[in-house]
């Protein structure tokens, strides 16, 4: 479980996160949703340690990340997998090398063991046999799947996904969502997904945190978010014509 306690983060005069607190449970897909500019990405970067918090703490199964020294942080990061918005695959490496990279850096596996592991991860994301392709030769959806394969290669305890569906068509988005959900349950990971996509909320959201003006504005389940009377959430959820129509039909 990841617990965030009273996080504050400012950039000069711009106070982005205000006493933000939330709990992300293991074996569940936890979604952070909210409009652009409300602090979702800053929150994620603070949780994974890419940004230092001004105050507050981040606890990984009770271990306070903000109080750890460099060595301890390094150790905990080997337990984290992350899927970036733009996939962030290493351009100069093949698909196979991308997946094997963390294994090469942090394990003492033999080359055969690493290859076996890479193949298992590629099988898991339905990309069997694409080992030797370069990232430039992959489609957007395939890049995301390779990024997921790389993220799970070290059997992480925590998985972060930053807008996994951005730039993807609806069917590929659905595929990526299903994959995230399946691997979360399969590996009993604590998964945190940052998204704008309401389809993802409906499809995979076990626990949803709505961030507004840098605060934990609302949290609950996907059934609760549909029924909520909170105006900010209604404005966000039913912003699109499609969702308005859907709401009308459901009503």
């Amino acid at each position, binding site marked *: 479980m990841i617990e965030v306690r009273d996080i504050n983060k400012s950039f000069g005069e711009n106070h982005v996160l205000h006493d933000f607190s939330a709990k992300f449970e293991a074996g569940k897909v936890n979604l952070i949703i909210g409009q652009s500019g409300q602090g979702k990405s800053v929150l994620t970067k603070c949780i*994974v340690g890419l940004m230092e918090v001004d105050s507050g703490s981040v606890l990984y199964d009770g271990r306070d990340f903000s109080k750890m020294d460099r060595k301890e942080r*390094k150790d905990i990061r*080997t337990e984290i997998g992350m899927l970036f918005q733009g996939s*962030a*695959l*290493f351009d100069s490496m093949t698909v196979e090398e991308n997946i094997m990279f963390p294994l090469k*850096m*942090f394990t003492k596996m033999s080359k055969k063991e690493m290859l076996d592991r890479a193949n298992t991860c590629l099988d898991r994301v339905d990309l069997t046999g694409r080992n030797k392709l370069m990232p430039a030769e992959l489609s957007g959806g395939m890049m995301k799947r390779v990024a997921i394969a790389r993220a799970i290669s070290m059997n992480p305890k925590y998985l972060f996904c930053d807008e996994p569906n951005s730039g993807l068509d609806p069917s590929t988005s659905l595929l990526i969502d299903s994959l995230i959900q399946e691997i979360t349950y399969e590996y009993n990971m604590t998964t945190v997904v940052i998204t704008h996509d309401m389809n993802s909320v409906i499809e995979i959201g076990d626990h949803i945190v709505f961030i507004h003006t840098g605060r934990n504005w609302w949290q609950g389940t996907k059934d609760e978010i549909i029924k909520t009377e909170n105006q900010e959430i209604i404005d966000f959820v039913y912003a699109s014509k499609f969702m308005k129509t859907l709401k009308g039909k459901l009503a």
Partner: protein
Amino acid sequence: MSYIVSIGKYVGMLKDVFSKPERFKVYYRRTITEIETIGINSAGIVAILSVFMGAVIALQTASNMDSPLLPKYTIGYITRSSTILEFSPTIISLILAGKVGSNIASEIGTMKVTEQIDALEIMGVNSLSFLVLPKIIASVFFFPFLIICSMGLSILGGYYSVTASGLTSHEEFVYGVRAFFKTGDIIYALVKTCVFAFIIVSVSSYFGYYTKGGALDVGKSSTQAVVWSSIVILLANFVLTQLILM
């Protein structure tokens, strides 16, 4: 004020660059790859520049020797001295700052804006050490070889230009090249080269690593890397010349 902040950031970056590598084997392999990318791939341009540079130095020296009191071997002597002391280590390093420096800044800058560096950090890899240290080792190790080749090719270019045009004879030029030779000059040139190699890679990496924004900013970082590497090389050249030769 911003210059002081930048210098502080640069020194902080170097501290991270020289921290203990996670896996020596991976770093060793990366260093070998960088020797090829940074060093061997620059050999062609260094060779062409050196030959023509030497040829022009010799021709200009010959054309400016109006006094009959000056012996002809002076052409070979000046070609050798100016090539070894200044042209090969400094001018070739400035050219390399353009070629290698822009390449490094754009490579690391692109990795930064496409979140590849964040991906390394999330995995627990010290991204600065992983990306920059092999480049520094490769350049400090390999640039002296390039400069030694440059010295030889420059003198050869000078030799062919003045002997083929009849401005001096083979014997006189060779005598001039060998006259008053000091081994210390070569050591001075190689020390300068190592310092310049370090400057090119570290300054360019700094601008690449701290790139913010998108593709346009990668281009800006690349330009800044070349400009500042060149300025720092010239400053270091002045300081080293004062320290070693004076």
